[in-house]
């Protein structure tokens, strides 16, 4: 396994993290917290399907809500917020 992969630096809930090039935002978030937002009933949720189907991993990325963390690749300087308000749709 290649353990010398290049790293990208980004912020998750204000915490600086590094993730390998090509990593998903979901993976970067997991270094800081297991939770991605809440559902209408108030329960905390985290990634489930890992492939863009379940929408459980929606977060705010660079100010834009409802981005699927598992489908988005980390970029240098990205700012991710997991505390997106529950919303329909």
């Amino acid at each position, binding site marked *: *396994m*290649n*353990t010398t*992969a290049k790293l990208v630096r980004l912020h998750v809930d204000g915490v600086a993290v590094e*993730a*390998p*090039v*090509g*990593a*998903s935002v*979901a*993976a*970067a978030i*997991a*270094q800081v917290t*297991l*939770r991605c937002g809440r*559902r*209408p*009933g108030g*329960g*905390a*949720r*985290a*990634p*489930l*399907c*890992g*492939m*863009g*189907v*379940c*929408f*459980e991993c*929606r977060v705010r990325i660079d100010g*834009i809500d*409802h981005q699927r963390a*598992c*489908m*988005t*690749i980390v970029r240098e300087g990205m700012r991710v917020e997991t505390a997106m308000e529950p919303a*329909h*749709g």
Partner: protein
Amino acid sequence: MAEHYDVLVVGAGPAGLAAADAAAGHCARVGLLDAQATLGGQVWRRDVRAEAPRMARHAFHAVESRTNIARFTQTQIVAATDNELLVEQAAQAHTLRYDKLVLACGARELLLPFPGWTLPGVFGAGGAQALVKQGWPIAGKRVVVAGSGPLLLAVAATLRKHGASVAAICEQASAKQLAAFAGALWRWPQKAAQAIALRSALAGVPYHAGAFVRAAHGDTQLRAVEVQIGKNRRRIDCDHLAVGYGLVPNVELAQLLGCALDHDGRHPCVEVDEDQRTSLANVYAAGEVCGIGGRDSARIEGAIAGHAAVGATQAAQALRSAQRHARRFSALLETRFALDARIRELATDDTIICRCEDVTWSALNDFSDARAAKLQTRCGMGACQGRICGTALAELGRFPRGGPRPPIFPAWLATLAEADFASTPN
């Protein structure tokens, strides 16, 4: 302005890659679309910390080296007509026109509800593999892998390679069924070799047949699972659970287009003829979307569809016997990994069924069809559009999924206003 392609291929897994390569080999102008950031689909998803398998590298290279294949990654299809797709890429809408369309949309996991399945730390089985391949920090974590099918071994091996401690693998199929499956594998020597390699990579990991997860426990996140192993119940402490009960074809786009579906099983698949043509003359389908059969049938069917779509019938015909052999594996999977009926009865009254809208099992008591349940409880009305709960309810025998309506994925309002889509071409 709308772009035009001779052949558009939806999905860049083994089937879509083969279809694009085959069609482009006959000089067609091909567009290859996928929602993911890189080629490969689920089975060949790139591992950010390891090299892709040789077969995958060859398939990527074949497509990437052809100048007549345009690749659209991170591209989501929102709506479709018989000659156009409305797609969204980086929040921008585009209309892509086609003469022939190849649906290689693949499959998703069958995720079934049980008490605690919404706890952070519970993943799908293939879901866990996908997340870990894309950098999810799993080293040192205790993981239980559960559910059904050959995928479980591949998942456990990937997690272990990345440093996870696999506490147990729980396969719901009985030891007798597994023995029958293993006994039939000699007809697919590559798969047999793969199975042997996986078992050796998993040496020392407890493997239980006839075992399934009854419940997940934890406060704010997963701490332990309760498993049924034969007649005994056991609690296993863990940080993650990777649980999936096999795969379900992604038929939404085919359904939206009006392709005939085969409804014989609990989950529909797309009907095709021996050229992989659907009930619509200019739409083909290949791979998992035609029924779960695995990588090998997907590659062959993709190639057949790619050839047939550009009228190269001889090249398509030459692959038919290989396709029939590869497809026999589907039937083997279906019989040997048939679900234990108890797994369909795990949800209790307060178990959430629709994860997007927090609709519980008991809230669905009074409903016998998906539409009424949706209107009254919002079940299936959330962002996943019923892909998770609708599929689960169909598997549980409650009611079949309702048909999809555009947009088939959540889209930006500006996308829905895209002027070129469904307008009359000049």
